[in-house]
């Protein structure tokens, strides 16, 4: 149990650092709201060696703590919607056993962006935002594949074997 809590704490810290790196070095493409989503790497990798409840806690803690440190209330609402939605989609994809990490990440990345756009459209009560949908979908596909390829590399490395031994 203690080992597990330590591991979860380390992963939350790692995810927060990845979020922070993205704030420090924004990956700007001229369209507001598009980013790589490196923190998702932690959630995606953790799915393979922790229980869904543990991964969900890590994701939630990362979002709440990063939100408290950096953002406003509204930014937190967007992160939560995206984070919860992409977690559920990635969990379903992982459990189905049909997809490799790249496919799971692809599904999670697009789900994240759709959820954030839906949240924005609800909060602002405007359909003008729907014009962003194709652009955000494409962004979700590209960033999802990038993260998936990195996660696949991480899962193949020996370091992960150590993590898997915690059970």
């Amino acid at each position, binding site marked *: 149990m203690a080992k597990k809590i330590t591991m979860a704490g380390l992963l939350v810290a790692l995810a927060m650092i990845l979020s922070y790196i993205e704030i420090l070095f924004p990956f700007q493409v001229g369209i507001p709201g598009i980013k790589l989503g490196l923190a998702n790497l932690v959630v995606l990798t953790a799915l393979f060696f922790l229980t869904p409840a543990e991964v969900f806690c890590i994701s939630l803690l990362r979002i709440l703590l990063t939100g408290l440190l950096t953002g406003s209330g509204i930014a937190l609402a967007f992160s939560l919607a995206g984070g919860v939605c992409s977690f559920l989609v990635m969990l379903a994809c992982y459990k189905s056993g049909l997809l*490799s990490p790249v496919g799971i990440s*692809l*599904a999670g990345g697009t789900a994240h962006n759709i959820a954030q756009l839906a949240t924005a459209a609800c909060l*602002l009560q405007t359909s003008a935002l729907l014009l962003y949908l194709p652009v955000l979908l494409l962004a979700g596909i590209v960033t999802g594949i990038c993260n998936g390829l990195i996660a696949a590399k991480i899962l193949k490395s020996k370091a992960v074997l150590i993590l898997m031994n915690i059970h």
Partner: protein
Amino acid sequence: MKRNDSILLAVLLLVTGLLFCLQPQPDQTKAAFIEVKADGKLYGTWRLDSPQTVTVTTAYGKNEIRIRDNAAFILHSDCPNQDCTRQSKIVNIGDSIICLPHKLVIEGKAEAGAAAVDAVAR
């Protein structure tokens, strides 16, 4: 990548491509008014042919809208990310500028009454 990954990728790309194609063509008719909505409610409308600076104050913060040469843009916002000040100007009907932190939507309209009709129809 597994075969299923490729199928998922193909489906997503297809949907994205279709959405790009179905995108309505931007209206090339010049807008006569801008309509400002804060938090989903109508805040006010302004004519585009009278140059002025409008200050919109909401519970979330302040935005200054500059109207000049039949176009409108956000001159200044006290939000942290400043995305709204970088969005393109409102010239035509349907053009919009959105400030997410302040829940503000500014849209180009043909006439000031159009908003009221929309609200009733909904």
